[in-house]
């Protein structure tokens, strides 16, 4: 009995300690704002974290927009209000689906890659040898990746929305024959810039911080063996996905709870 409570306590302390360590890494990474030397590193990471995620984001955005439009149409047409499909597609994308789905895809595509890359650098002593050369790996390796990941996510989420709305239009207007004018005007009248677009981007930014933080921390703190890295990669995807969904609920309650 006592040993169980003890084990629970020890596990709790371990988690707390890990959280503290990740906090230290986060603060070091955040304040290591890319200097003159670090710009190329940052740009390079922006490419491998952001640009290389574009394909999956665009394809997913297109399909989700099309499905939304199709589902919305079959429901709304019963009430004769199928021209509201544009409004429905745009609002659900901008407020909710773009940030969340982008973040989930990003965790799987870029987050896991970040963890594996950093973990492997640790296992092959590249991080140690950076330290011995007198270069802080938190500044050189972690910080550019963190900044790139954090800033990529809002951009990717925006692209997701745009492509999704276009997909919704393809299905709604070109295929199902909703009148184009009312499709767009309904959308324009209902989507508010600061209420919807800005809040959606804030969500994406928060998810960006959470997902990249988890990814770089899991890599940096991984056990430097092949199992250690594979476990860390799995943890990144699981923790990041759960964090995104949990944070989404909190943010939605804060932003849209009193509407």
């Amino acid at each position, binding site marked *: 009995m006592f040993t169980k409570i003890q084990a629970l306590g020890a596990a709790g302390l371990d988690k707390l300690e890990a959280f503290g360590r990740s906090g230290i890494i986060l603060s070091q990474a955040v304040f290591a704002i890319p200097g003159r030397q670090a710009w190329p590193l940052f740009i390079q990471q922006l490419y491998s974290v952001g640009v290389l995620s574009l394909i999956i984001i665009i394809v997913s955005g297109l399909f989700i927009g099309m499905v939304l439009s199709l589902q919305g149409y079959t429901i709304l047409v019963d009430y004769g209000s199928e021209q509201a499909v544009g409004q429905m597609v745009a609002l659900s994308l901008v407020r909710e689906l773009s940030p969340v789905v982008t973040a989930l895809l990003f965790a799987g595509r870029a987050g896991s890659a970040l963890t594996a890359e950093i973990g492997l650098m640790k296992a092959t002593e590249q991080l140690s*040898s950076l330290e011995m050369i007198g*270069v802080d790996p938190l500044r050189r390796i972690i910080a550019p990746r963190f900044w790139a990941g954090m800033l990529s996510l809002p951009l990717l989420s925006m692209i997701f929305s745009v492509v999704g709305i276009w997909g919704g239009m393809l299905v709604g207007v070109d295929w199902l024959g909703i009148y184009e004018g009312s499709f767009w005007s309904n959308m324009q009248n209902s989507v508010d810039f600061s209420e919807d677009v800005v809040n959606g981007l804030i969500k994406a930014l928060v998810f960006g911080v959470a997902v990249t933080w988890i990814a770089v921390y899991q890599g940096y703190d991984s056990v430097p063996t092949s199992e250690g890295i594979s476990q860390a990669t799995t943890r990144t995807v699981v923790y990041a996905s759960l964090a995104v969904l949990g944070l989404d609920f909190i943010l939605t309650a804060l932003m849209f709870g009193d509407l």
Partner: protein
Amino acid sequence: MSYLDDSIIDIRQLSFARGDRAIFDAVDIRIPRGKITAVMGPSGTGKTTLLRLIGGQLKPDQGQIVLDNDNIPALSRKELFKVREKMGMLFQSGALFTDMSVFENVAFPIRVHTDLSEQMIRDVVLMKLHAVGLRGAADMMPSELSGGMARRVALARAIALDPDLVMYDEPFTGQDPIAMGVLVNLIARLNKALGHTSIIVSHDINETLAIADYIYLIADAKVLAHGTAEELRGNGSEQVRQFLDGLPDGPVPFHFPADDYLDQLMQG
């Protein structure tokens, strides 16, 4: 005059444990300045650990590691990075940066710590690569190198900035006899020409004793013996003799501490 009168590193009462196992138990080690010091001992005694302690990558449980008046374990993160600019380290695994070419790997410390022109960096890098016989491999990526080549590139990188203190963790492993001879000479020559202090961890007794000015033998968390090559050869201790002659039987165990073999087999 003894070599230890002028030491660059002064380790006092160093204790370090991994879990319950003491790797070092209150050891004193002094590394003479401008000389080649060899650290030898059975595999798994903590030679790599010692280098990491000196480099500040591990913190000792107790004791001081004083490098030129700086007590390494007590330094702040920032001061530590400053001190490390004076050190070069060849890792046991090489640890080349896999996303850079051989040339860029060797150029890396120079780019980070100096403002030399591109032309000068090129000259220095090619010179270092030439010294380890790999000038022709400058444009290759680390994944294209053999283990021995990678280690030589790592050696070139460790000495790129001509540091005051170079630590070589098993530089000769995986080298053919020719490369080995060249590396032994290179390390000795660099030491004489540039006057920097070298610490070599190696299992190649003859090669190492040939160039080392001073030797530490470590076993069982203690310093077993230290002195010049002659002093060690003249050492009457059975343990020292066993190690220098490479005999399997004797007081120094070949096996990692374990339960009795027969007992373990009988337990099934």
